[in-house]
């Protein structure tokens, strides 16, 4: 008796090029950058390693900050590129796949939610992001922007006098002061990690139950989907018995 029974389909599966390379490249750049930024950031917040010897022989915090700042540049450019791609890329990468802008998306989101709450045995099928995942990603992008804005504010206030980044220092009062900006920077980091845990779980779960090659798709860009999902997304597997 196989619990994770593979889906058996009578239908032909269509190979769809879903995630163009900018989507995949920015996804992995962000994922790697978030690791590096979190490790260096937590050290900046809690320097648990104490250097011994003369101050001039050590540069631990200096390195942590330098790595944090250089990685922050990569992260910021990658996030901005992905946001630009939301207006340039293919259908599946556009902003309306993240922000549910149509009634149909909202209705379909309710069905996906029902699936997650065990109201349906199989998830409604979508080619790109399902509407619930899309909305989650919209919040993730907001979290990215919150990290960038609070980070640039902290950086801007102590940047070199000639640095153009100094203009970001002007945001400090709107964030409730620098110490509060720092607090937000920490809090949102944990928000991203909480998302990460859910994200990897859901990606693997969806890969199993949708059986369209979800996890593989973020590497290769391709999914293998039944034609009915392309014609009428969001209804596959909606059995009355569920």
């Amino acid at each position, binding site marked *: *008796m*196989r*619990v*994770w*029974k*593979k*889906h*058996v*389909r*009578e*239908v*032909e*599966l269509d*190979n769809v090029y879903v995630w163009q390379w900018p989507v995949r490249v920015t996804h992995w750049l962000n994922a790697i950058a978030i690791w590096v930024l979190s490790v260096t950031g937590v050290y900046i*917040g*809690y*320097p648990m*390693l*104490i*250097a*011994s010897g003369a*101050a*001039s022989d*050590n*540069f*631990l*915090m*200096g390195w*942590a900050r330098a790595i944090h700042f250089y990685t922050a540049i990569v992260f910021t450019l990658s996030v901005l590129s992905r946001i630009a791609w939301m207006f340039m890329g293919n259908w599946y990468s556009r902003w309306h796949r993240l922000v549910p802008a149509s009634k149909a998306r909202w209705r379909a989101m309710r069905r996906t939610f029902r699936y*997650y709450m*065990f109201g349906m*045995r199989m998830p409604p099928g979508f080619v790109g992001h399902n509407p619930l995942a899309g909305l989650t990603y919209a919040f993730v992008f907001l979290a990215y922007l919150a990290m960038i804005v609070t980070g640039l504010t*902290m950086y801007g*206030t*102590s940047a070199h006098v000639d640095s153009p980044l100094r203009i970001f220092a*002007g945001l*400090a*009062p709107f964030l*409730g*002061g*620098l*110490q*509060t900006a*720092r*607090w937000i920077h*920490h*809090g949102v980091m*944990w928000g991203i*990690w*909480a*998302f990460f*845990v*859910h994200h990897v*779980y859901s990606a693997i*779960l969806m*890969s199993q139950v949708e*059986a369209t*090659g979800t996890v*593989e798709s973020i590497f290769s860009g391709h999914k*293998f989907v039944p034609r009915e999902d392309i014609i009428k997304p969001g209804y596959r597997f909606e059995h009355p018995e569920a």
Partner: protein
Amino acid sequence: MEERQSWLNEELERRGVTRREFAGFCGVMATVLALPKAAGARIAEAIQTREKPTLVWLEFQDCAGNTESFLRSGRPTVADIVLDTLSVDYHETIMAAAGHQAEEALAGVVRDKPGGYIAVVEGSIPTGANGAYCTIGGRSALDIAREVCEGAAATIAIGTCAAFGGLPAAAPNPTGALSVADAVPRAKNLINLPACPANAENLVGVIVYYLTFNRFPPTDRYRRPLFAYGKSIHDNCERRAHYDAGQYVEAWGDEGHRTGYCLYKMGCKGPVTFQNCPNVGWNSGTNWPIGCGHPCIGCAEPDFWDTMTPFYSHMAGFPGFGVHSSIDRVGLWATAGVAAAFATHGFVQLGKRYMHARAENNDSEPEEPAAPATSSGKGADE
């Protein structure tokens, strides 16, 4: 003008300050104000020849700490003499007159010199209970502040209470205390000199700048003069090398504390606080808080009682989780909670599938059709 110059010379002599020291002071002022060294001569001339500006000093909800700072009783310095060149026509704490006589002096300045005096305000201005929390001679602080500051050539809000509301305005702000900027939006040329208390050197700096250039120094977004608040404590701190190296005090009096390591882990707010304490020092430059082993508490920043507390930890706790909570501990638990929730989801999912598979087996249906056209998701290529 001759007369006045000789007055200054006499005063310098009387206090035992040489001409050289005076010239030296003017040079130092030029540096403090971030002006070219040559500006020293111009400053010297201005201090000696400008007419005495009239100054009135208002105290509202305060502890008189800035007055103490202003009067600080070190050796008499040239700075004191510069402050003495002001004609302080009203200052409750230090003036000889009292009662209605004193109030008459203030009314006289406002009446006779409209736009011709500098108002210094110390303390926040309460607006709750119709201003009843602070009244002087039967008038509310708000009333007095509006009248005096709106008629002044410039207003200097000295100390964090006047500049940002300070302690009285800290949550829950029982008296409805406001900063001068908020209470008197029509005050002209408002300069904030926050800190708890403000450093007298910076007050001298502002006044010297005004005497020299007849205008006020450039300010930042919180109306603080850039010469004094343009750089963070952290960027000028003498312990900065230890910060960059990764050498921190971890407990009061530990090896690192005795060696003079960085106070970051003891809650130092130097990285988010802007003032020139490391450069000018306190008590006539004797020392300053971090210099003697105490972390910066961020006293020159808006709402520091609310945002910089707890003073001895790096970051505030999470609301509702107690003062000793930390955002990172709460964040870590939240992440663990999400992991637990999804793990539960996973188990429920597995359980349901197991039940389903068993039901299917009981119906003794074949588990898989004999020859599927295409099998799993990884099946077809096109």
